[in-house]
């Protein structure tokens, strides 16, 4: 069950990561360091990224809350958890290689 929650969180993380990159460099005034690069010169980061991290943290927070609620409910109500077991076991096996 916890493996499933972890897998869900991982999936959401993977889901959100590419989306979060969208805001990696939100300030249009910042020059793309790739363009100013010259041979022999190590490219410096163009900065930015705060909004990306905030977005990632916010979305993963939401994912964590959902996963937490799932875990809490399933541990508090073992009968319900048992009902979901046959459904979740193959999924867990596929994702994490464990039942």
């Amino acid at each position, binding site marked *: 069950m916890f493996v499933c929650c972890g897998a869900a969180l991982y*999936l959401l993380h993977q889901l959100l990561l590419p989306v979060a990159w969208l805001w990696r460099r939100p300030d249009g005034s910042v020059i793309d360091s790739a363009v100013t690069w010259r*041979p022999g010169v190590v490219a410096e980061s163009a900065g930015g990224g705060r909004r990306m991290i905030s977005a990632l943290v916010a979305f993963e927070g939401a994912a964590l809350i959902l996963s937490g609620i799932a875990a809490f409910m399933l541990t508090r109500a073992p009968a319900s958890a048992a009902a979901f077991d046959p459904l979740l076991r193959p999924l867990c096996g596929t994702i994490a290689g464990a039942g």
Partner: protein
Amino acid sequence: MASSASSLSGLVSPLLRAADDGATVCKGPVTRARQRRTLVIYLGLCLIGAVPLLLEAPAGWQAAGVGLWLPGGGFLATGGWAMLLFPLALALFVLALLAWFWAGMVVAPVGIWLGAAALAGALAGPSIWPAGPPLAAAATIGIALAFRRRTVRLRREGRAKAVVRRAFLPASLAEVEARVSVPAPEHRELTADDLTAVRYLLDRALQPVPEWGGFTMLDQYQPAALRYQINHLGMALAIVQGVYVPAFRGYMGLAQRNMIEKYLLRKVWDYWVHESCWGHLNFTDWDPAKRDNIMLTGWYGLHVGAYMLHSGDRRYLEPGSLTFRLNRRMAWAHSFSTLIDSVRWNYDREPFGHYPCEPNWIYPICNAYGMASLTIEDALCGSDKVRRYLPDWLAKLDSEFTDESGSIIGLRSQLTGLPVRFPISEGGYALMANIFAPDRARALWAVARREIAPAVQQDAQGRPRLMLPAGIDFGNYRRGNTGAYGGVLIGAREFGDDALAEAAQNALDAECGLSIEGGVRRYLSGSNRANIFAVMGKIVRTGDFGRTFSQGPAPEMLRGPVLEEASYPQVLVARAVSDGASLDLVLHPGAGDGLQAIGLAQLAPGRRYRVSGAAETEIVADAEGRAPLTVPLCGRTAIHVAPTA
């Protein structure tokens, strides 16, 4: 209009050829079947979801069932504080759709939808909230109606746009035909200004293969990915090679091979490992040149083929010459031929006639690269693939991927048949089509140029300037028009629209942070990818793009004397052509005037040559057909090497 329509037959979408009855809905048979299947599956889900309600099953099952109607809808049935999860689940579902589009993550929307239904079931108390199911049904119907209304509006607007297009198309097409019929000048030479632009490419391509200086590093899924930067850079170098310096090997060949080999580094293509897992549910075979992934096979095939076509180097036809190595244990040995085999195999099996990039998403623009890769294989290997595949490919483009306005649909879901808007103009398709379907390309450009024309205005100095509304640079997802102006510039040059090209070039120079420093031209407000477009636009002239990727050099060009060795950036090569016996070079200094040593090859062994423009006036080729030369570089320096009588 009837005669105009018949003259357009086969050139453009059927919608732009004849008067529309106003009721045409643009769905080919495959699209219709996929959309019908999607609807049947959804209605089946709704019915299954309703069964627990009808049978008055335990509350958990009822809530989970309602969750099948709409993502998160089950939380409404659960009632209480769990209802707050409804908007959260809907928002997550929208994000999941974005991930589906962004990275082919098919499991994301399915997982969120079914997961939310299961969670709603688990959260349900002894009974459901009675108002929940009607509310969920109302929300479902409301969302469906909103989408329906939007679709009807877009269709109406599309038909109106088609009427306008039908009116201007014949005259615009006649103008395009007149412009492209002007032959390109025989003497082709890069100017000193052009060379500053080409140096932007060479600086990046000549660094060691594992280094990434000058490349934008963001995500590896969508347009900013390294693979597109590498492919465009390689294609731009192929244009320089094919058009201006066909008789120059040296660092021009090395730069192109570096780009081909850089592509094989894991970080460029291992996105396919992730996409295979979450898109195809394939956890074992991540061969990047097998099923789908035309964004790799089509693009890379074109890139590699162009190098071989114009250099005469055939090394990438050898089995295993393009090996994608994931780790010590796993690698997939490919060559140019197996890339093309993958394109053909996918075309043969895909009912849409076009096949996906990411799992499930079919982009016609990437399929244009796929068809272009078959074209270059025909030119390289004497095969006949375009004649076999193109007619059906174009027919499916018209029937399955064209909207009511006659525009090509940006992308379509292979699984559901649903279309998605994606910002690619007729101009982008025109450029690619000029490789394998020039008539179609001209018609597409005839539409594009007329629709761009209103954006050409006069600047404060009275010069024409393209003025597009603020857009996104898809090379780094930031605000900026460098890529858009560069794209228009390439298209305008390719189709001989010099006035539009001048307006686009003026816009680039005025708005995009032009910098020429250290002999390198760049636009500071653009991404790497956008800068590569700008370079391509600067060097392309009428028909260059289409010819580069469909026709190889004359045999004597590959057979005759070549410039084999030159130092970069000290020696910049603006022209290098051979007629099979003699060699014409135009060189510029890249690091100050002075004497520079260069090396010639493919001379007739032991033969004596007369030289003008170099320190030597006569040279004798060694037993391998090589000879060194010393060149006093001072501005534009022309050198002619010809066998003595």
